[in-house]
């Protein structure tokens, strides 16, 4: 009877989790959705606590763990800056991975508790599932730690590549497979830990060759892995809720990775093999610099004057805005321009920022209403009748070479058609090319004006000029 009840509770929790994801189809329903998710998790935890065999000591231990973890999690979530969100998410993924490793270890040392055999005599099929959960969990952990270090600037965002890297990874992958097969055949404890160590090494090696701007793909992919790890553990211990939730999360991360790859017109394999734009900074395209018209540099006052007289302005934020923390002052600028009678819209490229939807959160934090923010397909037809495109901290995603130059590294990538606007302002620190290492021909167009300087400082100066 108790088992039926807990199974029923797990079913309710699964449905609530699905509703939590369903709510995210619109900002208005999303908050209720998040509430459903919390209730679902509460039900799952309570149902498990009332399972037979739970002693007083066990429950004390569990409550202590929940209290410690819960306090840490709550404090971190409340203190974190929204610009640091990508590294927080990466850090959280690593914890799920590590938890999966620990649960797999617990199942290995106490198989009776999960009904998968007795110690030293675990069912073969359970060993397969266990090693899957363990390996994916361990890869998620170390991969996420590297992603965290790169995103938090604790290690260089540049790709780390060396000769024979892919062969080494392939070799380790095959070795992992051999270890798993031997482990399933023998159920040896030493092999369990060898699988863990090898998987940690693989996760580390798989992420180091991937560069900073490809992080949206990596973060989504690790999100997906954390789901598959949970599903793997779910199969091991025969728990429906873990399987359903793992599948949901795995599918979600996979779709996000796909969207991010499509946003760069690259295959997931291409991203994972890494090394893209390894040097970045030096101009790669064409040697005909001398033939080019000079770049026009303008002052914030010029920009303020032109935007004051504009009817329609589209703002294109990129990672540079996040780095400079310019979102707040950008909104002030937009408010002043609205008072002058201009229509303001924001255009977001799918891969802007360091995680999916990063720019939307930063703009929302700066109190930009979400109905002024548009996705690429929605906004692209509107650039033609915009007076000004104000590009702040974005580069590659506006480069028309992606549409015309077949030799370009970014050829085929969907871009924001800012060049169709009457005037384009580029807020940039210098003339360096973007992450892809491709020079942006837009800088040399007659209707483009460069505003050199830190994104926040330049925008502040525009605001001051507008107030005058």
């Amino acid at each position, binding site marked *: 009877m108790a088992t039926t009840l807990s199974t029923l509770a797990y079913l309710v929790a699964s449905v609530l989790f699905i509703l939590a994801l369903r709510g995210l189809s619109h900002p208005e329903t999303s908050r209720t959705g998040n509430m459903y998710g919390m209730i679902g998790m509460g039900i799952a935890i309570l149902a498990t606590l009332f399972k037979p065999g739970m002693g007083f000591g066990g429950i004390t231990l569990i409550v202590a763990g929940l209290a410690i973890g819960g306090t840490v999690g709550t404090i*971190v979530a409340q203190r974190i800056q929204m610009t640091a969100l990508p590294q927080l998410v990466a850090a959280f993924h690593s914890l799920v991975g590590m938890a999966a490793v620990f649960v797999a270890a*617990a199942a290995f040392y106490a198989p009776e508790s999960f009904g998968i055999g007795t110690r030293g005599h675990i069912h073969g099929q359970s060993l397969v599932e266990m090693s899957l959960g363990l390996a994916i969990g361990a890869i998620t952990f170390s991969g996420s730690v590297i992603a965290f270090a790169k995103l938090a600037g604790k290690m260089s965002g540049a790709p780390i590549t060396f000769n024979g890297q892919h062969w080494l990874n392939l070799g380790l992958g095959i070795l992992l497979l051999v270890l798993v097969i031997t482990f399933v055949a023998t159920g040896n404890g030493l092999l369990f830990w060898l699988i863990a160590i090898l998987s940690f090494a693989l996760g580390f090696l798989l992420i180091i060759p991937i560069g900073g701007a490809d992080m949206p793909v990596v973060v989504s992919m690790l999100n997906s892995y954390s789901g598959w790890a949970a599903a793997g553990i779910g199969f091991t211990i025969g728990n429906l809720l873990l399987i359903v939730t793992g*599948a949901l999360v795995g599918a979600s991360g996979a779709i996000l990775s796909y969207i991010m790859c499509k946003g760069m017109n690259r295959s997931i394999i291409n991203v994972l093999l890494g090394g893209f734009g390894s040097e970045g900074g030096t101009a790669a395209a064409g040697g005909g610099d001398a033939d080019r018209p000079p770049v026009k540099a303008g002052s914030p006052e010029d920009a303020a004057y032109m935007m004051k007289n504009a009817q329609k302005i589209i703002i294109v934020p990129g990672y540079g805005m996040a780095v400079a923390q310019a979102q707040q002052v950008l909104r002030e600028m937009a408010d002043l321009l609205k008072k002058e009678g201009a229509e303001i819209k924001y255009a977001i490229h799918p891969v802007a920022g360091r995680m999916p939807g990063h720019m939307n959160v930063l703009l929302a934090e700066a109190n930009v209403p979400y109905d002024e923010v548009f996705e690429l397909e929605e906004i692209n037809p509107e650039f033609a009748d915009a007076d000004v495109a104000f590009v702040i901290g974005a580069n590659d995603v506006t480069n028309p070479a992606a549409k015309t130059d077949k030799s370009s590294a970014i050829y085929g990538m969907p871009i924001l058609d800012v060049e169709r606007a009457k005037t384009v302002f580029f807020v940039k620190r210098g003339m360096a090319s973007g992450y892809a290492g491709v020079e942006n021909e837009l800088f040399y167009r007659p209707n483009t004006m460069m505003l050199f300087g830190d994104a926040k400082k330049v925008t502040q100066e525009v605001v001051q000029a507008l107030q005058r």
Partner: protein
Amino acid sequence: MNATELATQAQSMAQRALELAEQARRAAEAAAPVAAAAEPFLYLLTIFLLACFVGYHVVWNVTPALHSPLMGVTNAISSVIVVGAILAAGTADTVVARIFGFLAVTLAAVNIFGGFMVTRRMLAMFKKKGG
């Protein structure tokens, strides 16, 4: 047809229904252990694949503006692995397994609370024009 005949007929039909029910019960009893022992994996796999489809359809409906909160929520719910951790910490018969269970409960709890809280913070910021 008089009332007595009708009653007799009804009685015999009730008798037959009872027999059928008994047969069905025996058949179910005979089949249950087979289904439970031979096909739990297929049963779990079915659920897994169906859940993948549900996830696929639900997530394509998520608006791109909310992709960051989506990562927050999925991160929080993937910590449902805490269920396995609780079972280990609460019911395992070896100290090692209990320690691993406790560690896993703690890590998963960081994610559960952190994930839902940070998502709530994010979602609270998304406002309409004039809202």
